[in-house]
């Protein structure tokens, strides 16, 4: 009997063969935290340990409220800065043009590596599965404990295998696929599980698209989500690696799964998650014409260059009908989009472009919503009131669909906007 990705990746870490439901203690290769580093450092100090187990394994990227929207945020940033200095920890990404959203910067900087174990004090840490990394979100206390001991316990998860064949049609994106999957699996359907994406449909996808898939693993309850570490991954990480101790690992063909599902990507149509749950799926045709007040293109889910290109493809030469906030997921992406004319196209259309960071995704700043307002967003959560007032509404969709909807002021099938 072969192993699943999770069994093999955790097994590699402990040096023996593992099966689902065993409990193991592993040493994480990297520990990612963001603005919550300050509070974690306070908990860490309570343990009574002076130094973190390995300062080179800490990666801290400020993104949740940057630049600080309040003095409380500023205090958290200050504590993070001071702690990293005290610990002599080198991997600190402050509020500079070298920063961005943590889940974008972490792979860009070469910390997401095949076969490694990454823990992050943010639920969307599962994004790094796009690089064949076993990556999962944890809480603050647990991160403080991992810093102190260099260890964390896991139950080896059972696995769900999602196979995709074929290719997505024009105007349809990886976001539409994963919204459909979330609608089928439901928000707790992969609770505690490792979600594996298989098939030529995944191989056909770019790294950016695979990050979108893995990013949303947590929205089905998954412990982690992962794509095969193929040539595209190896090509991406080449020259960026922040560690030499990695190894491409993938599930064996005879691995045992708790659940298996198959999709033909030709069948996927533009979709949305309606308010207020991520699994409230509808094909876009069902909600076409719904009035919106704001559009948002950005976040760790869909703020990459390809996503901005998709939005610009729709909006070039048009004018937006509702306010549209664009936030590139990192400053590297920001600059590339600036150089290749993408930002100009979006600005010409009337969009505003804000600095890299999480922005309004979690209601901190840069586009929060008033009572009764609806926003169509490329983000990952549409929980009630997440982007502002409790009586506001969030529709999750692809960058194509968000841009097409921004141009009309109502939810629009992007295939109409590109003349299909």
């Amino acid at each position, binding site marked *: 009997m072969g192993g699943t990705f999770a069994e093999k990746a955790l097994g590699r870490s402990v040096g023996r063969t593992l099966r689902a439901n065993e*409990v193991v203690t592993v040493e994480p290769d990297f520990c990612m935290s963001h603005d919550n580093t300050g509070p974690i450092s306070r908990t860490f100090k309570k343990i009574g340990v002076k130094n973190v187990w390995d300062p080179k394994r800490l990666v801290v990227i400020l993104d949740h409220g940057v630049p600080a929207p309040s003095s409380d945020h500023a205090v958290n940033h200050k504590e993070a800065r001071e702690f990293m200095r005290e610990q002599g920890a080198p991997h600190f990404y402050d509020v500079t043009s070298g920063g961005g959203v943590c889940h974008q910067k972490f792979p860009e900087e070469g910390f997401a590596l095949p076969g490694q174990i990454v823990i992050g004090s943010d639920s969307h840490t599962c994004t790094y599965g796009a690089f064949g990394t076993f990556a999962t979100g944890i809480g603050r206390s647990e991160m403080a404990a991992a810093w102190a001991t260099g260890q964390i316990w896991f139950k080896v998860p059972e696995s769900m295998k999602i196979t995709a064949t074929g290719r997505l049609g024009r105007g349809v994106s990886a976001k539409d696929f994963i919204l459909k999957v979330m609608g089928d699996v439901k928000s707790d359907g992969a609770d505690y599980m490792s979600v594996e994406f298989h098939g030529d449909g995944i191989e056909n996808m770019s790294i950016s698209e695979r990050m979108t898939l893995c990013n949303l693993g947590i929205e089905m309850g998954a412990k982690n989500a992962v794509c095969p570490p193929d040539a595209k991954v190896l090509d991406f990480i080449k020259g960026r690696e922040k560690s030499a101790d990695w190894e491409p690992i993938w599930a064996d063909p005879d691995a045992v799964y708790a659940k298996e599902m198959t999709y033909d990507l030709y069948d996927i149509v533009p979709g949305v998650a309606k308010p207020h749950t991520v699994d409230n799926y509808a094909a876009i045709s069902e909600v076409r014409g719904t009035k919106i007040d704001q559009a948002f293109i950005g976040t760790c889910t869909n703020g990459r260059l390809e996503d901005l290109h998709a939005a610009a493809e729709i909006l070039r030469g048009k004018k937006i009908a509702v306010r549209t906030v664009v936030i590139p997921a990192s400053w590297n992406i920001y600059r590339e989009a600036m150089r290749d004319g993408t930002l100009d196209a979006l600005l010409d259309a009337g969009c505003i472009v804000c600095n890299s960071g999480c922005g309004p995704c979690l209601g901190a700043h840069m586009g929060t919503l008033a009572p009764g307002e609806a926003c169509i967003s490329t983000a990952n959560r549409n929980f009630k009131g997440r982007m502002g007032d409790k009586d506001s509404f969030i529709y999750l969709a692809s960058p194509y669909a968000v841009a097409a909807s921004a141009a009309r002021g109502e939810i629009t099938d992007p295939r109409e906007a590109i003349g299909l």
Partner: protein
Amino acid sequence: MSEVLRGRAWVFGDDVDTDLIYHNKYLAETDPKNMPQYSFEYYPGKENFAREVKRGDFVVAGKNFGCGSSREHAVYCLKEAGVPVILAETCSRIYYRNAINNGYPVLFVKGISQAIKDGKISDGDLLEVELETGTIRDTTNGGTFHGDAVSDLERDIMASGGLIPYLKANKKRGAGD
């Protein structure tokens, strides 16, 4: 004979996400003692929870309680309010780990999601909960429910009062000092 906890039920549905429990606009708050005032502010019909919850009251919920963010605020705000245990059909992975790591029990209760939908357990019902056996009696409605016991490691961590006190008591290999 194990200890019996008695209190009123506050009843919630399925998929109670972390923004409903503790909204992200209060994330910059870092002192757990200040967190209960924001509990369930965004949950329709439970805006009064923070004001009216009494120490000893129970949170009763359906499937997937605590889905979403990794914020520990969503555990602290209930623990600090004096809610002694969460009774839910299932709970998200990160929420569950955060609860255990803070010495805060969650009982997984089979059938409670449907019982909530059927009105067999309602706001204000008086409950008796035995953590040792996982038995829950609704003395208002007359129903009885059964929760799953936790694993040994989880029990050890909770018995220490959470992960940080557990580590202090069991300082072992790998500690960086």
